[in-house]
């Protein structure tokens, strides 16, 4: 089994006629993802990679029974695209890949999200993959292998690195979720951990965090209080100097003690989560947990 994505997932790609939208639609199809429609205003009736395009997400959901949306829309219009997907009946999962959406736009999307039962993953994320079944997003499919380890990460490329370390020693993944590094995201660590905890086929979880914010500390508390599934962790940014911003909006160390790698690692270890010094060591811990 898996979380969020399975063989019944039917995807509509928003922004399918753009360069990234088209390229990754082809990649998703090649991986076996059930991409059933595209949605681009004014492009209804066209086809991209053999996939029919509709003017609205609602039409795509109605005509093709789409139940998930992937957003490849440019930043200026991506907030609106998220609203459209959240508003469409039948869409249970929205994966927003777009990087650079204005934070205030995402605050409004987040506000809307609270009124729905839909899961939003991202934005500024690599997407979600259930190896061997489907991928929604830009993750390179060939490094993943099917198995029983769940993975949740704020960073896309770090996800790939850790998955590579796991796959290389024969440890497969149930689902990997890149939740994104922006200040405001839909599904957070706790949201993903809840899903993995409820999945009988996920036997261990890897959580990759980084400096900045307090999400990892909160997730550590959640693990300590609510999880039976064992978790291994990794935190990027141990060497980051205080006060400097390292790419991700969240990856800044305030210098006041919270949000540092040390505080996150301590929080995880105090809640029974072994934290690797290197991605390779994370794989060692997972091997021990299984």
């Amino acid at each position, binding site marked *: 089994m898996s979380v969020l994505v399975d063989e019944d997932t039917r995807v509509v790609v928003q922004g399918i006629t753009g360069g*990234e939208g088209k390229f*990754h639609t082809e990649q998703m199809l090649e991986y076996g993802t059930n991409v059933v429609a595209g949605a681009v205003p004014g492009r209804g009736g066209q086809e991209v990679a053999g996939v029919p395009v509709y003017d609205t997400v609602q039409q795509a959901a109605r005509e093709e029974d789409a139940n998930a949306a992937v957003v490849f829309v440019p*930043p*200026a219009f991506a907030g609106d695209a998220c609203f459209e997907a959240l508003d469409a009946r039948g869409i249970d999962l929205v994966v927003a890949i777009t*990087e*650079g*959406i*204005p*934070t*205030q*736009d*995402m*605050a*409004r999307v*987040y*506000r*809307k999200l609270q009124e729905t039962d839909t899961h939003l993953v991202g934005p500024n994320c*690599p997407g979600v993959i259930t190896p061997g079944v489907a991928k929604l997003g*830009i*993750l*390179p499919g060939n*490094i993943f292998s099917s198995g029983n380890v769940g993975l949740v*990460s*704020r*960073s*896309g*490329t*770090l*996800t*790939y*690195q850790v998955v*590579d370390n796991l796959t290389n020693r024969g440890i497969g993944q149930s689902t990997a979720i890149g939740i994104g*590094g922006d*200040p*405001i995201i839909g599904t957070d660590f706790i949201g993903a951990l809840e899903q993995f905890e409820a999945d009988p086929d996920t036997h261990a979880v890897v959580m*990759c965090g*980084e*400096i900045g*914010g307090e*999400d990892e500390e909160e997730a550590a508390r959640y693990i300590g209080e609510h999880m039976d599934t064992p978790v291994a962790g*990794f935190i*990027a*940014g*141990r*060497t*980051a*100097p205080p006060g*400097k*911003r*390292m*790419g*991700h909006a*969240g*990856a800044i160390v*305030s210098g*006041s003690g919270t949000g540092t790698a040390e505080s996150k690692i301590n929080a995880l270890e105090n809640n029974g989560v072994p934290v690797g*010094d*290197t*991605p*390779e060591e994370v794989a060692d811990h997972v091997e021990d947990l299984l």
Partner: protein
Amino acid sequence: MRLHEYQAKQVFADAGIPTPASQLAETVDEAVDAAEEIGYPVAIKAQVHVGGRGKAGGIKLVESREEAREAAEDIIGMDLKGYHVSKVLVEEAVDFVNELYVGVTMDRGEGRPVAMVSTKGGVNIEEVAEEDPDAIAREHIDPAFGMHPFQARKVVYEAGVDREVANDVASVLTTLYQLWDDRDGADTEINPLMITGDDEVIAADAVMNIDGDALFRQPEIAEMGEEAAEGDELEQKADEYGFDYVRLDGNVGIIGNGAGLVMTTLDLVDYYGGEPANFLDVGGGAKADRIANALDMVFSDDNVDSVVFNIFGGITRGDEVANGINQALEQFDEIPKPVTVRLAGTNAEEGMEILNEDLVTVEHTLEDAVQRAVEYAKEVEA
């Protein structure tokens, strides 16, 4: 993106927030003329993005022409915590009885904006937040509705602001929220908001940080931002190239894709006994030119003795990266610093085949690449 104080004050004043009389000056003579025109006492304030300017000698209060000249001579051209001061704001010194803090920011934990008021103004508000969090009254705002007038009044009364000025402070806060909302603010702050003996409220400082991702719809602010850009030559170059770049103290240059992976590479350099010279994230989907620019940047840092490239392609393609590296290195008769490359993910095999192994060292795992780069750096040092 952060505006200078004089720019933020202009934005605040245009929106109707009272600010002191002030003039911008770039030379000592201009500063003295401005002081004479405004009338003493005036404050002469360095316009650089540095916290604690006063303590560092970047703000001086003067009472006469002689003092104004002396202060302007001291401040213009000074080096303030690594930033060169080329402009000062000459400003009427306000006679105040109280100082407040007023601010609006995004509470990322809540995913909503928050308005804050404190009667402990005029001091480092981060310290107040840490030592006495109850001294700051907070009100979360629903972004779908914006700030209701009652919310502004509520937070002002909760903070314990004097009744005589509460309405005026609430009105400043309402305007500040509107600015934050309209201008895509990240943080907007007034610290201190001064209360005079006549119960007037005046913004004696102004902070305006704008969401860099929203500049496409804030053309006027974007233009001000270009003027406000500062930092050393390398940081300005990084801005031009559009890289997330942070200069550090070590000698191993680090280039990678994705913030989390680049930070991990830094951590591994440290783990294997080296010292990172920088953080450079080329971002997602980088093409050959961008990769070449990244190498150019790191080569131009004299501290760098060795460079490690760590690319795990998802949206980024290994062949593009390899072409960029070749393109950047082929122009040299002799490679200035040894370059170690690790490519994985999308089109990595194609990339490995393209890479010119006469110019770079290729490693197949992250650990090997980092260790090799650290060894090279040590050889240079030795």
